[in-house]
């Protein structure tokens, strides 16, 4: 019972309290705390505010569709066909997952700035046209930038579902005379449709919750989305209450979509996907396999190769606009960050410290809860699981506002402390940690622990000697799944950092105000390099496919 109380207290503190505080604040007068609907009237009483909501919906829909176009064919090709170079494509998809969307956005500003972007310059040189054809500063531009960052979600969902579909039904269709196209579109893809839509929904939710990329692209493109509008409520005078009211639709949409996703994935009609598959044979694509590889490479070029190429060029350039030339090469941007900037060393250290600490905290908590839930140690254990998963439906900016409202002021007065950031990150990534821990635990039969206990060992001894060693690998994988997104987390950090607790993402955001892309790229490159190094190390420990398990 004591354990249960501790766990529920931790979850109330991390999840329930900030969210209740947020909902409450949306109905409160700023100074007196009296109940009112005025915040809602103000938040929705202006046309630009309403337009921002529509823009967010347009962005989310566009991103989901485009991410589907990118992710589904690649997932199918890797899972079901004899397309060559699968390992490389998988690596690139992982790369797209690791690159923070705001870095991708900077890469695309360098590529598709209307006059100076590399692609536009190439176009102008090739055709003699007076100006370029691409404009990153537009809704279409933003959709592409976000879609290339979020298609890995669609890929992961679709790919893992496809891996479970056996060839038997395809064979049945084939025997009845269906062609390959007909089988793929009439049998295989419909079988994984729920998973596909699940991936699309996650992309949609990512897109509408994102803050960094829209701040870089939507402002020059002259439109707002919900997250940038929320940021504006934090201008002087800080209107937390109005922001809370304005955050409600984002929360509502997310809850709704999540419920939809659950009901789709939970549907039992698709028996083929519910168990371990039978035999699976790769479809021979013949000459088409090269076309398929071409498509996959094109997607990887848009999402990883091109943006990273121009980011690296900028990181080592005196002025990126001067192009690839020897006399334009310099290490000054790195020197500036490491030695001349008074904040960067701290920020780099903080980033990895907070991400690491949050990953440990999220996994410790979620493992304890998963254990309690899985072994049914306490009544109402499912309530714990639900609370654990709840942050999934809270966009980062909204979570940060909740944390700010609940824990920044006294009595806790955590504003500017490392604790508030670690706690917020822990909450934000708790669902990932829980999903991974629960999946790991489900795979272990309780009999082994029972053996320990029959021989006189306590529960803790059983956990230490049996569970921990068995779970080591999947926990390391889970740790990485939290650690990587935590190193780049911007939206929940932006309202919580103080001058001593700055992280790289926030520093990048501040530097981006001046558009100093050379220094930005250098700092971004260091963030990526460190993240990749840690991920590579973990690959060796847990194997390459850790990001494909769970969810």
């Amino acid at each position, binding site marked *: 019972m004591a354990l249960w109380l501790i766990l529920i207290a931790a979850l109330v503190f991390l999840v329930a309290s900030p969210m209740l505080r947020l909902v409450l604040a949306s109905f409160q007068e700023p100074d007196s705390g009296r109940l009112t609907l005025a915040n809602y009237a103000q938040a929705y009483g202006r046309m630009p505010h309403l337009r921002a909501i529509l823009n967010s919906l347009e962005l989310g829909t566009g991103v989901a569709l485009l991410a589907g176009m990118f992710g589904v064919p690649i997932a199918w090709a890797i899972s079901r066909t004899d397309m060559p170079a699968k390992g490389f494509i998988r690596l690139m998809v992982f790369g797209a997952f690791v690159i923070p969307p705001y870095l991708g956005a900077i890469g695309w500003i360098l590529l598709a700035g209307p006059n100076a972007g590399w692609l536009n310059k190439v176009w102008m040189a090739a055709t003699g046209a007076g100006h370029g054809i691409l404009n990153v500063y537009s809704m279409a531009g933003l959709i592409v930038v976000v879609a290339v960052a979020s298609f890995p979600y669609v890929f992961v969902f679709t790919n893992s579902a496809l891996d479970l579909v056996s060839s038997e039904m395809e064979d049945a269709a084939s025997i009845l005379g269906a062609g390959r196209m007909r089988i793929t579109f009439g049998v295989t893809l419909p079988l994984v449709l729920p998973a596909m839509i699940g991936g699309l929904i996650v992309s949609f939710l990512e897109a509408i919750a994102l803050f960094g990329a829209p701040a870089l692209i939507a*402002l020059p493109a002259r439109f707002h989305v919900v997250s940038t509008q929320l940021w*504006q409520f934090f201008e002087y005078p800080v209107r937390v209450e109005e922001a809370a009211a304005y955050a409600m639709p984002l929360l509502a949409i997310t809850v709704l979509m999540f419920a939809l996703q659950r009901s789709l994935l939970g549907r039992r009609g698709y028996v083929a996907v519910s168990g371990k598959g039978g035999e699976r044979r790769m479809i021979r694509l013949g000459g088409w396999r090269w076309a398929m590889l071409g498509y996959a490479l094109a997607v990887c070029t848009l999402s990883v190769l091109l943006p990273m190429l121009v980011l690296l060029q900028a990181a080592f350039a005196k*002025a990126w606009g001067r192009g690839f030339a020897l006399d334009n090469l310099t290490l000054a941007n790195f020197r500036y960050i490491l030695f001349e900037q008074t904040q960067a060393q701290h920020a780099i250290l903080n980033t990895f410290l907070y991400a690491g600490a949050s990953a440990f905290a999220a996994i410790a908590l979620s493992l304890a809860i998963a254990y309690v839930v899985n072994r049914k140690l306490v009544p109402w254990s499912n309530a714990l699981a639900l609370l654990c998963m709840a942050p999934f439906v809270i966009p980062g900016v909204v979570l940060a506002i909740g944390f700010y409202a609940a824990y920044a002021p006294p009595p806790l007065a955590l*504003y500017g402390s490392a604790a508030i950031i670690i706690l917020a990150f822990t909450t934000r990534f708790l669902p990932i940690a829980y999903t991974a821990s629960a999946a790991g635990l489900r795979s272990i039969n309780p009999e082994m622990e029972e053996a320990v206990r029959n021989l006189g060992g306590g529960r803790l001894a059983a956990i230490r000697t049996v569970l921990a060693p068995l779970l080591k690998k999947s926990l390391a994988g889970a740790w990485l799944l939290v650690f990587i997104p935590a190193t780049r987390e911007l939206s929940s950090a932006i309202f919580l950092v103080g001058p001593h607790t700055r992280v790289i993402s926030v520093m990048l955001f501040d530097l981006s*105000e001046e558009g100093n892309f050379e220094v930005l790229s250098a700092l971004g490159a260091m963030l990526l390099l460190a993240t990749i190094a840690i991920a590579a190390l973990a690959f060796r420990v847990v194997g390459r496919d850790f990001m494909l398990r769970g969810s």
Partner: protein
Amino acid sequence: MTCVRKASRRELLSRGGALAALGIAGVLDPRRARAHDMSAREQELYAAASKEGELTWYMSHSDDVTAQALGRNFEALYPPLKANVVRTTAQVAFQRVSQEIKAGAMQVDVLSTTDIGHYVYLKEKALLDKYVPENAGKVLDIYRNYDPDGTYFVTSAGMIAIGYNTAKLREADAPKNWTGLTDPKWKDQIALGHPGFSGYVGTWVLTLRKLYGWQFFEALAGNNPQIGRSINDTVTMLNAGERLIAGTGPVGTAMSSAQKGNPLAMIYPTDGTVLIIAPSGIMKGAKHPNAARLFMEYLLSAEASQIWVDHFNESLRPEVAPPPGVTSAKDVRTIRPTADEITKGMPEVIRQWRDTFGV
């Protein structure tokens, strides 16, 4: 201070551990020998500040490079004090300060924004600490006595003119005055900052609204300018070749960039270059009050003015002159709004801007 000496210190900083380098710089830098000519007050503050160890400075007066150079110079003058320099636009800095006030957890020691209205507001709410620096009496007359009660002081001045990319535009073809920016031939060619972020841009908007009314901005919007956040973003846009003209051209940042070899030059408009006078103040409840006071002294010192001049901003001190050939405020016709006009007008022009430009 000569350029050579500055470069050598920078090199030292860049090599090896910053701490060790700072120690060496402290020995090598001849100005460390001036410890003996510190005034009694300065020595007292230095001793007390050394116990506090550091200070946090929210800074919007310049680009990040100049801000960090000032911070490093302060560290070199007063070891082992550390300066945490957080450079953002004025409204973002004030947003963070407002968050800290609301949460009751003051993180910043010295606030330097470019919107004088911030200080009028903070003073009214008794959120500024009163401290009259010794050096406040040693600056040029035009920078003195902005607040008779001694809660904030002008610590920086710079100009906004029209910048252009010299590789793509001849001087003869560039606009000669502000109204020239509304000429339709500059459609899709102008870069601007945003008054909702940059205090420089906000002040510029106020000044031009006073000169030409809001119609000027409606006409300007017709030219579809690229709108960034910081005023310094316009320099990036010119360097990249994304735009030809910086409608809000920050002289300091642009000339520093030109010095590095970028194809940039300024036009000082015939209808007046906008002069920005930007204050600093110590926050009430600051965690490092003595370091903050010492830092205020520093911002008004000849050393700081030298750094400002090196980065093509104005010198506050009569004994520090800009290098020959560099245009400073006394060489051109400058215009600027009064502190009162800024305090009242800033929130209003930000609203108007959002209505006209959409963001």
